[in-house]
């Protein structure tokens, strides 16, 4: 039974559940991919007292869950988890292994792939199966300015880490039948070479611009600090956050935290408004994951306008004010 059915595995990363649902999102995508290569979708869970997650994964599409449950696995440990994972993969030989691109996943997956001597594509934003039944992994490069499609033609399994929020989870079905395979903790496990001194869960932060579904970005084209402040009112109506370009932050129209760009603030809103921004690459490197971009600029040839879904040729300050008025008219509370 072991090797005749192909399988797609999803690493069960439950540490920040419910906020981080990437495992569920991957189970959903794996379910679609599995149809194309006639494979079984499996989840892998390491930890202590993890039945809750096992149930959750089955409800979200896992047909089989491999579980190692032991008190010594209470805390995430890359050394030990890597060891357990590589042993399981060697035994059951999955075609594909998907791991959420959380901090842990991005440390764990490279080591698993190294030991197995196979390819890994990091931080994917797309997964498909091609005509050769290979996993086509779409991954960003250069801050998302370019996307690369990558395959692992020969080595197995094909491993990918996948950015949270890319795929939609399937609604749970607690009636779903799934098998649970308990795997005992191996006796000859090596010691964990990294010692955990302390681990403090941070309070869930308030909405950050990186997580916001709507971002209103403003640049020098807003003209003045006073007009720039109108963007805060617009953002409030839209339930979003305000972002800014570097000259704006330097002129103190917005606080440092609002700076969007190459440096490190990468945003991924579903809707992005861009007011009076030229579209220098240091800024646009931070917005390549925006789904729908509405740009306002006096200059129709600005780079930002070419990147936009809707390019509005007009005065940024005036459009902002008009938009606030029109939204207020439409949203009756």
């Amino acid at each position, binding site marked *: 039974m072991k090797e005749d059915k192909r399988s797609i595995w999803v690493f069960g990363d439950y*540490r*920040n559940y419910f*906020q981080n649902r990437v495992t569920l999102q991957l189970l959903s995508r794996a379910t679609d991919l599995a149809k194309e290569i006639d494979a079984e979708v499996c989840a892998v869970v390491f930890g202590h007292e993890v039945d809750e997650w096992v149930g959750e994964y089955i409800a979200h599409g896992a047909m089989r869950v491999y579980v190692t449950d032991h008190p010594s696995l209470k805390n995430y440990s890359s*050394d030990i988890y890597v060891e357990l994972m590589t042993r399981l993969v060697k035994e059951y030989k999955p075609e594909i292994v998907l791991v959420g691109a959380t*901090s842990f996943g991005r*440390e764990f997956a*490279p*080591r698993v792939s190294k030991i197995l*001597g196979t*390819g*890994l*594509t*990091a*931080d994917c934003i797309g997964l498909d199966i091609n005509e050769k039944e290979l996993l086509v992994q779409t991954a960003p*490069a*250069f801050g*998302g*300015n*370019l*996307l*690369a*499609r*990558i*395959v*692992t033609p020969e080595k197995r399994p094909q491993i990918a880490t996948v950015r949270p929020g890319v795929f939609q989870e399937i609604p749970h079905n607690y009636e779903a039948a799934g098998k649970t395979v308990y795997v005992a903790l191996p006796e000859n496990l090596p010691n964990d*070479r*990294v*010692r*955990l001194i*302390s*681990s*403090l869960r*941070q309070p*869930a932060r308030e909405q950050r611009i990186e997580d916001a579904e*709507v971002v209103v970005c403003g640049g020098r084209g807003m003209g003045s600090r006073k007009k720039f402040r109108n963007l805060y009112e617009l953002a409030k109506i*839209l339930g979003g956050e305000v972002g800014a370009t570097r000259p704006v932050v330097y002129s103190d129209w917005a606080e440092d935290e609002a700076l969007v760009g*190459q440096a*490190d603030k990468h945003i991924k809103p579903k*809707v992005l408004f861009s007011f009076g921004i030229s579209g220098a*690459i*240091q800024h646009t490197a931070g917005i*390549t994951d925006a789904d729908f*971009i509405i740009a306002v600029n006096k200059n129709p040839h600005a*780079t930002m306008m*070419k*990147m*936009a*879904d*809707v*390019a*509005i040729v*007009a*005065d940024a300050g005036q*459009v902002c004010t*008009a*938009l606030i008025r*029109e939204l207020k*008219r*439409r*949203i009756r509370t």
Partner: protein
Amino acid sequence: MLKMIVCMKQVPMVTELPWDAKTGTLKRELSEGMMNPACKHALEAALRLKHEHKGHITAITMGPPMAEEILREAIAMGVDRCLMLSDKKMAGADTLVTSYTLARAIEIFCADFDLILCGCHTSDSETAQVGPQLAEELDIPGIAYVEDVQINSRIITIKRLSDNFLETLEMDMPGLITLTTRNYAPRYTPIAGLQDAFDEPNILVVSADDLGLDEAFIGISGSPTMILDVYSPTAQKKNIVMQGTPKKIVEELLERFDDRIGSVIRKDLKVEK
């Protein structure tokens, strides 16, 4: 004496990227290079440890001859020794092969290291894989995404934010860490120092044969992953242009995209006719 290795990579300067937004092709050979930002933070961390513990730093890069520039910069900033792995046979390496190649060089030229510092990821390929894979290849403990590192009686203690957890971890030497860009803002490179660094001959250039590497395991042929194509995601926008008075424009915008915007902000934007 604390013996450190900093692995660094030259990446194209993003401002200078000569790329065609329409086709998404990149003329990499034309772009100017710079030291990858996270590597520079790793170097800064190493320099501070060197100051504190009387250390010695070897900088290593694998890349085309032009990548020598970042080693010169590293000398100007304060590293003691440089190793440059440069060979056509090494070109096109993916992370698995890069970590293999770096490991072999380290074993030959600086086997008695205490600590390896890498950047957490590079700004061009962004894989964040080389560090953890190098630790695995050398069979030493490794910790990624480090924000603070202290060393006390041969124990490496680090702090990091991993997902939502503020962690303090420790491991024995030798070990490997990868640094984020959150701390260790790099010092300025003194211009005079930079000039001196270019006069200094002491960069050891090493080829695949010097390392006794099997060609089957290096470069593009040794890499298990294969790039099918590269394209620009922004080239495919439909780009609707709107003009007129601000009032007319916003009416048109909300008329055409009431669903698209309304569904995201969870508000009904339709006006009753």
